[in-house]
């Protein structure tokens, strides 16, 4: 994992001191709310329905045990004993007091964490493949590049008052576990014809009111021109992105209006200029950062077999939650934060501490957070899987449902969020309860629930998406089908008129019945939908 040097530490400490001063000026009345709001937002502090909410950055979803224990401490000391892991690999606390926020940030800084730029019209936390450094299918590790981006984007002098928020995701595999094509910039590490490392660069994806799958604007960006090219994209956006209408201010609208080719031309022209200015990190810096992500001391000659000991629950967990690792004798363990009756993505302080302990004992001290609101222990010896399973079961985290119907993604919705029009969590829980008995039979089924058009619950990218809206003062839910946030990215389509909360659960059950009836061998729900189209589903739901 990356560790701060004196520069990183001094910068984060200075930021805490700056925010402490800003909060003091706000509380004394020297700073009015209009001018304070963007400052607190850039430190991750929102005012939500019940209290302030703090969003803490988990850079590219990586945590050490020590950091996860600090997140548990924050939950206990400053909140109400729990936190919510988000769809962008961050964690949110729901009950924060403004006057305590500077102390909270100082505690985070003590474990090399911060909440900078987790909100506001700036470059947000960089997200990446949660299997980075462990995946069997990885071309190159995205984490060093994500860290380089984290540093480049932090307190950027030119890009701190953008037209709108800006999100970047990276993957080092052809399989996309980071939803890169739904980001403002999506980056895929690839090898060029001569074996050199570079990026495929996608720009202008996003969800929200106007969803787009990002088009490719550069097929191979040499790694050495990485930062100057990012700078060029951001400068074109900062100068020419729309600022007259908040709903048209994301870069996706600029890319769409100009067309991908014209946008790419503008970026290339700016890049020709910027790459001469010494913006790109020297090789020594890339190597310095990459060294932090060297392999942990994996053992060699380990037995690769896993025995389930005839325990069906353990066998089901092994089959569902455990993925191959690129080193023989190791596995990637997915920890479900979607237990029956649980709130998607929520974890108590005790659960966080239990996972931190397991990571320390069995996963080289590493934990990852996924955009699907689950956790990952990336490097577990096959021989330790039983112990990990039992440790997770002891705190209610041994559900075996990764990628299944009850592994629902949900934003906080109207239970917490001031932007929401309808509740997400109760609907997600009801859908999960309804489908859980048949979820093994249904196979991979990604259900995603948002409580408003901003789409934090990624409903556009759900095989089944649910969007909560306000219809004449009551909650109403639209059903969408056919989205994907993976390498086969697509945008889900609205099936028809909306439903009540109970009605949308029934409708979801009906569309899964159509799938079971119509599917061909080996087809997922998404494959069947793509083959037969929306009509049979419409008939089943509205007929």
């Amino acid at each position: 994992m990356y560790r701060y040097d004196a520069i990183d530490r001094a910068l984060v400490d200075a930021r805490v001191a700056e925010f402490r001063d800003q909060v003091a000026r706000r509380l004394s009345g020297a700073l009015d709310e209009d001018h304070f709001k963007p400052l607190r937002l850039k430190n991750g502090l929102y005012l939500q329905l019940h209290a302030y909410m703090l969003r803490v950055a988990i850079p590219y979803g990586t945590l050490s045990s020590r950091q996860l224990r600090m997140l548990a401490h924050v939950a206990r000391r400053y909140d109400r004993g729990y936190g919510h892991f988000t769809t962008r690999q961050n964690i949110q606390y729901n009950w924060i007091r403004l006057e305590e926020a500077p102390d909270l940030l100082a505690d985070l800084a003590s474990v090399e964490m911060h909440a900078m730029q987790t909100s506001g019209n700036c470059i947000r936390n960089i997200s990446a493949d949660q299997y980075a450094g462990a995946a069997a299918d990885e071309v190159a590790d995205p984490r060093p590049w994500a860290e380089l981006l984290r540093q480049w984007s932090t307190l950027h002098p030119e890009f701190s008052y953008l037209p709108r928020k800006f999100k970047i995701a990276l993957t080092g595999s052809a399989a996309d576990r980071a939803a890169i094509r739904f980001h403002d910039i999506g980056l895929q590490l690839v090898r060029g014809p001569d074996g050199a490392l570079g990026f495929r660069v996608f720009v202008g994806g996003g969800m929200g009111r106007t969803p787009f799958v990002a088009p490719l604007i550069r097929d191979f960006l040499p790694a050495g021109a990485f930062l100057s090219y990012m700078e060029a994209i951001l400068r074109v956006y900062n100068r020419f992105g729309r600022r007259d209408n908040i709903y048209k201010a994301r870069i996706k609208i600029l890319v769409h209006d100009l067309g991908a080719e014209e946008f790419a031309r503008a970026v290339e022209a700016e890049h020709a200029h910027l790459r001469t200015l010494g913006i790109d990190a020297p090789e020594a810096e890339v190597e310095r950062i990459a060294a932090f992500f060297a392999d942990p001391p994996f053992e060699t000659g380990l037995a690769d077999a896993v025995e389930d000991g005839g325990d069906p629950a353990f066998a089901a967990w092994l089959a569902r939650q455990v993925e191959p690792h690129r080193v023989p004798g190791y596995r990637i363990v997915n920890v479900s934060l979607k237990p029956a009756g649980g709130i998607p993505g929520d974890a108590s302080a005790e659960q966080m501490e239990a996972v931190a302990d397991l990571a320390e004992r069995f996963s080289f001290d590493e934990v990852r957070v996924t955009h699907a609101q689950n956790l990952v222990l990336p490097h577990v010896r096959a021989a330790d899987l039983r112990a990990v399973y039992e440790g997770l079961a002891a705190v209610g985290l041994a559900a075996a449902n990764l990628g299944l119907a009850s592994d629902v993604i949900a934003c906080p919705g109207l239970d917490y969020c001031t932007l929401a029009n309808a509740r997400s969590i109760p609907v997600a829980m009801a859908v999960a309860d309804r489908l859980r008995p048949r979820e093994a039979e249904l196979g991979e089924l990604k259900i995603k629930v948002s409580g408003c058009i901003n789409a934090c619950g990624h409903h556009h990218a759900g095989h089944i998406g649910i969007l909560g809206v306000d219809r004449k003062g009551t909650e109403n839910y639209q059903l969408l089908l056919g989205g994907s946030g993976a390498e086969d990215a697509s945008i889900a389509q609205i099936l028809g008129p909306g439903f009540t909360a109970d009605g949308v659960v029934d409708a979801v059950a009906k569309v899964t019945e159509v799938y079971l009836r119509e599917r061909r061998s080996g087809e997922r729900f998404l494959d069947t939908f793509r083959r037969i189209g929306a009509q049979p589903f419409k008939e089943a739901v509205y007929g």
Partner: protein
Amino acid sequence: MRLLTGNVSRTGEVVWWAGDRWSPDVADAVGLEPAEGEALLAREAVAEKVNDLALVEAEPGPDGRPRPRHIRERIRAFGPTVRPDLGRPGRDWR
């Protein structure tokens, strides 16, 4: 009838205008006529002690006290529906 509500700047806590003070308990809230509400809102906005000030529609609740009409404001008043353990004891958002 309307209620004046917002969140305390210092803490973020939800509060309701209770006639002569802010109260965290919606049961203390007083129903306001439109002109009275607008005047209060303007006055409190200048004071800058409470953020996100809003006048919200209310109706008499089962106990005869005013309660917010919209589910959003009832959730603000009573807590997240999915964590009744964190809400106001004995109150129901429904």
